Every structure is written in structure tokens, then in C-alpha cells.
């Protein structure tokens, strides 16, 4: 057979459902490998394999091994996984809800609200009495960011819901207004901040998993886990919504319930993720887009695959952020932006037909 013969054979597209389901297994395997790599990598040179060997032979772990593996790398691994999954799934749900591949959780105001919450905590937290600061300590920023994210989502939801119907278009516009307002208030607070606070703010905005502790895992992981798993039940509804709200309703989908569920899931998952890790961009847009190209837009398979790939990519980015300038660490938001921004640009250009690949 010549090359020309090969080219003329019609491309028989494999049923994408089969491909997408097989991708569950591949992506889970990839996540497992990345997770092991993540546990094995770090600036201290502590060996995962050495420690595992000791566990098998019943030898005592050194304090260093226990602290590095159990208290530092493992919570960081878990937090990285759930946050990666949460960002990617939230992105996919928002894109389904807004019927637009460029939508992201920022559209429901979580980002702006959480950002403002973090800034309020960092700048005004210093005004709290010392004894209170001792109690709330490191969690003040996280709680305040989470609260800010939820509050802004609820305000947006209320503003855009009339007579039991949520207008997605109003939500988009009101979200822009609310974002501008939050930005202005943030600006005032930034103006008031001292040098150390400015530094904290900047780093919060870049995102990091460096502060991962078991306490953060226990607070954030269950909430994110529930939201991510709940999103898997939205698949059919979001598929129907691709045909428009009216047609989705004709298919028997309770559109209003779907919309409120989607918004609450995204607010919960993203709010918790941003609260513990700061701003991490692009996972939410890039992951669903890549998966749609590879296995199609069916949300039934897209959402679980997005959770797996999002977790994998964030862990991968975290490994890079730890190694690239070791022993120092690059904020993970920078890594995801450096990798994600070119892909995002490619999506835009491709949509406008400016590039063909």
C-alpha cells in the first residue's frame, strides 16, 4: 500500500464515548504516577523509596523522613490534587453553564470576592488584637477568602435571579460590575498596606501550595471533594443545556435547578481552592479544552476526566515549581500561567481561524 492509498482511506472515527471512558483509566494511571513523583521530589533529598523500604522492614523512620514525607509532602500532595480537580471541574461546569469554552469561575464572582476577602484579612487582620490573631492565625486569610467568594456569588445570584429564573447574561454583566467594585476596594486596601503586607498580597495572588498543612487538608478537601463528585451528576443536564435553555427544558431537564446547583458547586469548590492556595489560573480553561479536543464535549465523561487531568497538571506544575529554582520555590500560579497562557492564546486564535493547528 502506498502513502497515497493510506491518505484516501476515510478516517473512521472511533466512538468517542469509548475513547472518553478509556481515558478515565489512562488519566487515573497518570495521576497515580504524578502523585508518586510528587511524593518523591523535593529540595531536601529525602527519599520516598528509602522510607518505604524502612516501613516494609519495620525499621524506624528518621524524624526528618517523617516530617518531610508525612507533614510536608503528603498534605501538599492531597491539597494539590483536590485543588487541581476543583479548578478544572469548576471551569468545565462554568463553560457548560455559560455555553462558552472561555468561561471560568471568575464569572460567578468567586475570584473577585475571594481576592477581596484575602486582602481584607491580610491588611485589616493586623488591626486585630494579638490574642485573637493568635487563635485565628494562619487561617484568617483562608476563611476570609472563602467567605468573600461565597458572599459575592450569593449577591450575584440574587441580583440575576428574578421570579425564580436566573439570567446567565445578567450574571455575566453584574459579575463584571461586582469585579470592578471589588477591585476598587482592594485598591484602597493595597494603598493602605505596609511593605510586608504588600509582599504577602503579591504572593497570595500568585498562588502556592507551600502552606499545605493537614489542618488545611481537613478543612478544604471534604468540601472540594463533595463539590467535585456532585458535579459528575450535572453531566446530562449540561449536555442538554448546550442546545439552549428552552430546548434543555423540553428534554425534561429542570434548568433552574441545574443552574443553581452548578453555581453552588463552583462557588464551593473554587472558593475553598482559592482560599487555601491563592490565585491559580488557567487550569480551569486549558484542561476542559484539551479534553474536548481529545474525547469530545460530552459532560458525562468530561467532568470526571477534567478532575483527573486537573489534579495531574497541578501536581506536575507543583513539582516544577519546587524544582526549578530549588531550594527556593516558584509560586505555582506563575508556573500554570507560563504553561497555560500560550495554550489559552492558541485557543483564542484557533477559534477565530487565525491558526489552523
Amino acid at each position, binding site marked *: 500500500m502506498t502513502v497515497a492509498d493510506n491518505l484516501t482511506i476515510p478516517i473512521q*472515527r472511533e466512538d468517542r464515548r469509548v475513547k472518553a471512558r478509556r481515558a478515565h483509566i489512562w488519566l487515573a494511571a497518570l495521576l497515580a504516577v504524578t502523585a508518586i513523583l510528587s511524593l518523591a521530589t523535593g529540595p531536601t533529598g529525602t527519599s520516598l523509596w528509602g522510607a518505604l523500604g524502612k516501613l516494609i522492614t519495620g525499621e524506624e523512620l528518621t524524624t526528618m523522613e517523617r516530617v518531610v514525607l508525612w507533614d510536608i509532602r503528603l498534605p501538599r500532595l492531597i491539597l494539590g490534587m483536590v485543588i487541581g480537580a476543583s479548578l478544572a471541574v469548576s471551569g468545565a461546569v462554568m463553560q457548560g453553564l455559560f455555553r462558552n469554552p472561555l468561561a471560568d469561575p471568575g464569572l460567578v464572582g468567586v475570584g473577585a470576592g475571594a481576592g477581596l476577602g484575602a486582602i481584607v484579612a491580610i491588611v485589616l487582620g493586623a488591626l486585630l488584637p494579638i490574642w485573637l490573631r493568635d487563635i485565628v492565625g494562619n487561617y484568617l486569610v483562608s476563611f476570609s477568602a472563602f467567605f468573600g467568594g461565597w458572599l459575592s456569588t450569593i449577591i450575584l445570584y440574587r441580583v440575576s435571579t428574578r421570579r425564580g429564573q436566573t439570567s446567565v447574561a445578567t450574571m455575566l454583566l453584574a459579575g463584571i460590575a461586582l469585579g470592578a467594585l471589588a477591585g476598587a476596594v482592594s485598591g484602597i486596601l493595597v494603598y493602605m498596606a505596609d511593605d510586608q503586607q504588600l509582599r504577602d498580597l503579591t504572593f497570595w495572588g500568585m498562588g502556592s501550595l507551600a502552606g499545605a498543612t493537614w489542618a488545611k487538608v481537613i478543612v478544604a478537601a471534604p468540601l472540594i471533594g463533595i463539590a467535585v463528585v456532585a458535579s459528575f451528576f450535572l453531566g446530562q443536564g449540561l449536555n442538554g443545556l448546550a442546545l439552549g435553555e428552552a430546548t434543555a427544558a423540553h*428534554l425534561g431537564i429542570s434548568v433552574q435547578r441545574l443552574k443553581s446547583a452548578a453555581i453552588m458547586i463552583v462557588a464551593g469548590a473554587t472558593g475553598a481552592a482559592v482560599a487555601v492556595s491563592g490565585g491559580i489560573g488557567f487550569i480551569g480553561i486549558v484542561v476542559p479544552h484539551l479534553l474536548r479536543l481529545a474525547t*469530545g464535549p*460530552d459532560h458525562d465523561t468530561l467532568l470526571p476526566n477534567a478532575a483527573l487531568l486537573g489534579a495531574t497538571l497541578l501536581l506536575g506544575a507543583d513539582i516544577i515549581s519546587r524544582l526549578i529554582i530549588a531550594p527556593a520555590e516558584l509560586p505555582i500560579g506563575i508556573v500554570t500561567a507560563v504553561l497555560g497562557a500560550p495554550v489559552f492564546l492558541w485557543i483564542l486564535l484557533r477559534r477565530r481561524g487565525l491558526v489552523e493547528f
Partner: protein
Amino acid sequence: MIEATNIKVKIGKAAILDGVNFTAEPGKVTAIVGPNGSGKTTLLRAITDEIPWTGQISINGKSIGDYKAWELAAVRGVLPQAATLAFPFTVIEVVRMGLTSGVHGNKDGLASQALARVGLSGYEDRFFQELSGGEQQRAHLARVLCQVWEPVLDRQPRWLLLDEPVASLDIGHQLLIMRCLQDYARRGGGVIAVMHDLNLTAMVADAVTIVARGRVVAQGGVQDVLNDQSLSSAYDCTLRTNTPPISDMRYVLPQAAETAGS
């Protein structure tokens, strides 16, 4: 039976429908015709509960407010005039969206069968957005057919509510789709179609409702309703109907103003 009583629809301050009564029986293709802006699509959208309306609408004797969303989906499929699609779904994926939880048996087989019914066999793996307008419309119709595949379920008729199902089709596919709708009605289902083409309507409809200026101006069998007077008055132009000697099929000819005899 679908019964709509005293339907009023207002958009802003304008009354689009002003106290319309409409009935459609199972086993029949019921066409809704009328000039642009007469309210025929609005009537269909009221019956499908897409827009706010007042009055009474019942399907199979039960008020549509008493149906749950999925119950309604199991009893009637709706084809809008223009359905958009976000994301690059393939044709078969779009048709499968019609397979709601009420459908049992071989779901995949059903989607392919529905595609064959609308003349789109072999289009399964094409991207929906790459199809022509007419092909997209037929693919959507296949999706709607899937949703209410058996015309009768639990001894209750099921319904196809279609807004201009053949508007962007070529003449061959118009006939194919209209025969498919006739077949659905013959097997006990109900079909309500907003139609633009009066001759096609005369050929396949069992009952016709003429809507003009927000009111039903005539309702009944083809021979009774499609006549010179009711059509000319509804469409506000001179129209002549005739019946060729070899068949009893009514046809409509527009009359250019200067040659109009009456």
C-alpha cells in the same frame, strides 16, 4: 388531545395572542398557518410552556402545570424554529440527547434509526456544526423523534410539537419529513406543526388552524379552512385555491395584484 383555552400572551404591552382557543387530536397532523407575526409560533411556544401565558392548556386531559418536567418530556417532543448548539458535538451525540430517561431498550439503535428516518444515515460521526442548515434541522428532528419514539405509550398518545419543521429543507426532504410526520400520526401519535408552505400543508395536514393578528380565524379540516376567502383575509392578499380534477388535493396559487380577477 391537546387543548388550549383562552390563551393570552403579552410581550411588553403588546398582546401577541388575544384569547386563542386551539385543539389538536391524536392521530392527526394539525398545521398552524398564518402570516408573519400573526402569533402562530407564539401559540406553539405557549403550548410548550416556553413563554409566560395565561389561560388553560392541557395535554391528554391533564393541565401542563401538573406535569413534572420529565413527565412532560416523556409525553411530547419539541422542535424549535432555530436551535443552537454550543461545543463540537457529533450528530449522533446530539440525537442521543433526545434519549431521556423515559426511553427504554436499545438506545444506540434508536438514535441511528431516527437518523435513518430523516435521511441522515451515515452522518453519525460528522460534527453537527459542519452540517448545512437543512441537515442540522433534520438532525434536531431526529433528536425529537428519539425522545417520543413510540407514538403511543401506556395507551396515551405522545406528541410532536414542531415549529416550521421543513422551513429550510429542499423539496425532496420536505416530502420525506412530512411523510414521516403523517406516519407518526397514523400510528396514533399527535403532530402539531407550524407551517409556512400552504400547499405542503394542504397535502399532508388533517386539520388546519389559521392564526392572524393574534387570533384564531379558522379551524377545521383542510377542505373547510383552506379556501379563497379565509386565506385571502388572513394573509391580506389575493389567494386562489383550487382542486385538480384527478385528485381531491387542494392547492393554493398566489395572484399577482394586476391579474387578480376579483
